[in-house]
Every structure is written in structure tokens, then in C-alpha cells.
């Protein structure tokens, strides 16, 4: 019922920060995710890949944090791509229409290449 956040540098065609999330993102844990993403954006990192492969659960507060981050980086011509393979979590992005505003990829490589 907790979340672990880990940030890595990815030096590809277009360098970016990769944020690994591991656990469950809910009303209790999403402030920790928000803090990490806000920290990166405040430090000038506007291209982000958020890896949700090890996220077993996400609710609307988690979605809100992702949407908020996307809006902020877009003000700086940046973008947020997601890595997600869990069908239940994909379903939530589908239902809410968020598939249309996020780039969602099956692999981290694809998410980084398509920034």
C-alpha cells in the first residue's frame, strides 16, 4: 500500500529523466509522487518518462498528479510519456480518455524514443 520513487537519467536522442514508480498510487501515496515530479520540473527537467510497469494500482489522485505534471512541462515545450503494460491500469487511462493526452508505451525504450 506504499510507493517507491526512483529517478534515473536517460541519455538518448533527446535526454530525459526516467521516473520509476513501484507500488500503489492513491490518496495517501500520491503526494510523494507529486513531490518527486514537482522537484524535477522545478529543476528544469521538462521531458519525463514515468515508468508505471511496477505500479499495481492507481486512482484519480494519482491520475491528477500525472495530468498536473503534463500541464506544467507543456508550458516549457516538454512532454510526459508513460510506460504501462498492466491491463487494469491501461483500462483506467482508457475509461477516462487520458489515452488521448498521454503517450503510453509498452516499453521504456519506446517511451524515451518518442519524446
Amino acid at each position, binding site marked *: *500500500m506504499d510507493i517507491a520513487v526512483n529517478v534515473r537519467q536517460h541519455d538518448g536522442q533527446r535526454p530525459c529523466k526516467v521516473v520509476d514508480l513501484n507500488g*500503489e498510487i*492513491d*490518496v*495517501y501515496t500520491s503526494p510523494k509522487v507529486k513531490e518527486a515530479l514537482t522537484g524535477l520540473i522545478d529543476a528544469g527537467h521538462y521531458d519525463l518518462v514515468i515508468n508505471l510497469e511496477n505500479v499495481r*494500482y492507481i*486512482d*484519480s*489522485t494519482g*491520475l*491528477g498528479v500525472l*495530468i*498536473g505534471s*503534463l*500541464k506544467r512541462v507543456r508550458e516549457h515545450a516538454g512532454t510526459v510519456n508513460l510506460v504501462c503494460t498492466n491491463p*487494469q491500469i491501461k*483500462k*483506467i487511462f482508457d*475509461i*477516462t*480518455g487520458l489515452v488521448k*493526452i498521454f503517450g503510453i508505451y509498452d516499453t521504456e525504450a519506446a517511451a524515451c524514443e518518442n519524446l
Partner: protein
Amino acid sequence: MRESVASAAVASDGVVELRIPSRAEWVGVARLAVAGIASRLQFSIDDIEDLKLAVAEACTNCIQHATGSDAIIIACRILPDRLTISVTDHGRGTSPEALAPKRPGDQQVGGLGVFLIRSLMDEVEYEVDPQTGTCLRMTKYLRS
């Protein structure tokens, strides 16, 4: 391996009730309990995930919006063909419009909770009293 106990539970008028403080750290316990109840009733893994999310969204709304309520009561009523879960708080209620069915706006940070609840459950009903609080009753049917 999973055996249905729904019919047996009805005989004893099966209600499982959980009461948690209206605080973010206890929503995970509500999710766990609901997952346990739903798996006893032979819901599919997908349906169990839907139930967990719907209950968590309801609890999150109590915590974030039900001003003055210190507890959330989650009551699960087990019937042979369905599970009805009510989530009740005793805080300040909202207007019916806030809870009405609607599509979420594009790129809007909030406003997804009620939409998800309505999308994931088969029947959803809000009873709002500005004085005594909000009661959300939602039902999911067992697919056979």
C-alpha cells in the same frame, strides 16, 4: 479453488462493515478488505480491481470533501447475484449536480472520482443531506 459462499451468506443476511478514520492512510485498508470480500464471492480479478477502485474513490471523496466528518463507514451487503457497497460520511454534503453523471473535462486535474465510480459499477446512487452527510450506494453484479 474459489468457492462461492454467496448463497450461504444470504441466509445470515451477510453484511460486512468497516469503519475507518477519515484519513488518507486508511483507504488502503478499505481496499484490502473489499478485495477480500469480493474474492470470496467469486468476482473475477478485473471486477475485484473495479470494486477496489470504486471504494477507494468514494473514500477519497469523503476525506477530501466531507468537511466535519471524522469517519467513513463502508458496508458491504452480499446477495447471491451482486455485491452492494455503501460508503457513508457525516460531513457537509455537496449539491446533486456535483455528483451527477458527466464526462470528465480534457486535461482537468480533478473531477475524475465520481466519473470513475459511475463507470466501474453497475448501479450508483447518491443520497445527500447537507446536514447529515453523504451516502453513496453502488452495486456490482456477478457475471455468470
